[in-house]
């Protein structure tokens, strides 16, 4: 079987997801026998333009990004959003809560117009995304699972149930039992509940499950003493774009 060609692209991001891919190569060097990497700017100079699978990291942060992404979409048979930024806008979208001009002026002062920018958004805001791998950063084994599924011609199965499931299986003491808070009940599992396992509440990097009971979750947070501002800050760390969509606030 010939190895399918894959390419990696990055938009606005910390490139931590691509680093996780490099880490996956440490533990699974056989990945290089399974696929042919034709573009990976962060790690190689070669640039192949013929690819079947495009992994796209990062949010769109300015209009010019969309054009580039559309170009990638046209060439790719399968487009996979890699990580929180590309999947749900990620931390980049935090700034969307403030007026764009204010943000730009805050950053670049009078020269704010020198640097183009618009509200940060996920890849799916501009093109059709076939699959996504959630997380900030992505989970290494989930990445390998997705690649394996794509090679097998199987739909990658990204979990669509709350993190609490995995957290319970890890037998963690629930953070709410320790007087802390956590977004686990409404956030997609798949990371092995790594944050609660390391003593910190889930921050929601993998995005909301399909049917979250947000009202009930907010009540839980309130009952555990969080102010409305603090609840907003929690929900908005990775979820600003998703939350604003649910609130029906526009992005253009």
């Amino acid at each position, binding site marked *: 079987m010939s190895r399918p060609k894959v390419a990696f692209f990055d938009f606005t991001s910390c490139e931590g997801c691509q680093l996780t891919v490099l880490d996956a190569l440490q533990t699974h060097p056989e990945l290089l026998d399974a696929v042919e990497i034709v573009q990976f700017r962060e790690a190689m100079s070669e640039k192949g333009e013929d690819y079947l699978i495009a992994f796209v990291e990062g949010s769109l942060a300015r209009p010019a990004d969309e054009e580039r992404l559309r170009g990638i979409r046209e060439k790719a048979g399968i487009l996979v959003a890699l990580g929180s930024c590309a999947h749900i806008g990620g931390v980049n979208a935090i700034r969307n809560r403030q007026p764009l001009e204010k943000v730009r002026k805050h*950053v670049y002062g009078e020269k704010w117009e020198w640097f183009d920018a618009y509200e940060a958004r996920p890849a799916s805001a501009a093109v059709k995304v076939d699959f996504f791998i959630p997380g900030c950063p992505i989970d290494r084994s989930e990445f390998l699972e997705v690649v394996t599924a794509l090679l097998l011609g199987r739909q990658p199965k990204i979990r669509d149930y709350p993190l609490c499931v995995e957290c319970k299986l890890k037998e963690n003491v629930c953070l709410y039992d320790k007087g802390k808070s956590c977004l686990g009940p409404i956030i997609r599992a798949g990371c092995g509940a790594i944050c609660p396992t390391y003593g910190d509440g889930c921050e929601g990097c993998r995005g909301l499950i399909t049917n979250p009971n947000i009202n009930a979750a907010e009540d839980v947070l309130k009952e555990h003493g969080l102010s409305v501002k603090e609840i907003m800050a929690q929900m908005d760390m990775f979820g600003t774009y998703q939350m604003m969509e649910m609130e029906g606030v526009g992005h253009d």
Partner: protein
Amino acid sequence: MTNVSVNVHHLTRVEGHGNIIVDVRNGELKECRLEIVESPRFFEAMLLGKPYQQASHITSRICGICAVGHATTSLRTSERALGVEPSQQTVLLRKLNFFGEIIDSHVLHTYMLVAPDFFGVGSVIPLAKTHTDVVLRALRIKKLSGDLCAMIGGRHTHPIALCVGGFTHLPNESELRAMRKRLVDARRDMDETVALFKTLDWPQFERETEYVSLTKSDEYAFIDGQIKTSDGFLYDLDAYRQVTNEKIVPHSTAKHASHNRESYMVGALARVNNNFDQLHPQAKDAAAQLGLEPICYNSFLNSAAQIVEMVHSVEESIRTIDELLARGIKPEEPVEVEVKECTGVGSCDVPRGILFHDYEIGDDGLITGANCVIPTGQNYANMEADMRALVPQILDRPEPEITLMMEMLIRAYDPCISCSTHFLEVEFVG
């Protein structure tokens, strides 16, 4: 005589997006600049209104490679603002974590991003076939450092357990012992790394400049300390703006910085130049083998300085684990914080150089102002100055070679472009 046009669009094997533009007409350097085309990130704006506890988690997302550096700097900034003194155990664990990140970042840079240039290939992937042992060694060191970071923070990229006042999770002693053993075994890999890099033919190029780093009286500084420059200046952290003097330039979403001269350099070479005496003896030995001697003005040798720091970090990690084991790991809760209106500056010398965070926190614990000055941003002016100095020296070479040299020069800085595109509280010069 010559016309040279170098236009490297989207520099590869660096973190983030940058372009190199060189234009020489009739032997005269018309244009020579590094364009930062990464889209602006606005992290400082993002921190506004966020609880200070979230700041380290948000700012670690500035960079996937030096996430521990950003997180630690952020924690130190909040702690210094709020007047929190972490325990000795916390200090030791943070140091250990930091060594892990130094090793991780430096091995990635030297082996996977820089070395391919010397082997004449476009990436580390073909090396897997031709130099299997080299690649396997790199992967082994990378895995070790990644596991070291994960043992403390839960994962390397975007650590979890680090919080204001301490940790939300502690490694246990048997994990520390197992890690110690692996670090001891890694000494051989360090020896072989030094042996490999000393055979590389570093480009001969020198340009005098100013080197800026943290410094401490009692140790080779990575976390906290004072700001030291090779031109003989010493500042407290709060005075960081006197050093950074950032200005906006039109061709870059990142800001340029200058202190005593038109530019200065930060990073491994700056640290080694400024704090050479405090390196572990093993690291000094490595420096000697690599021909690195302070004060070294060859920017290409920044990669050699990184190897020296890797050796230092392996040795210091072992020593730190010994100290932790001798004390025994105590189950500690993070130090309690009394929230008040306050401001503070924190700094770490992260893999790519000195990093500053500066926060204002309101009495409700929400951040009301933030500034982050990132190492790569401080290096831009110096990179361009180097480019301007280097081009005339190599004009007689064929264009592809000039291009490669320019790329290698920029890569030597290990630029983290994505993290340098940030907001600066601007006093405009540009």
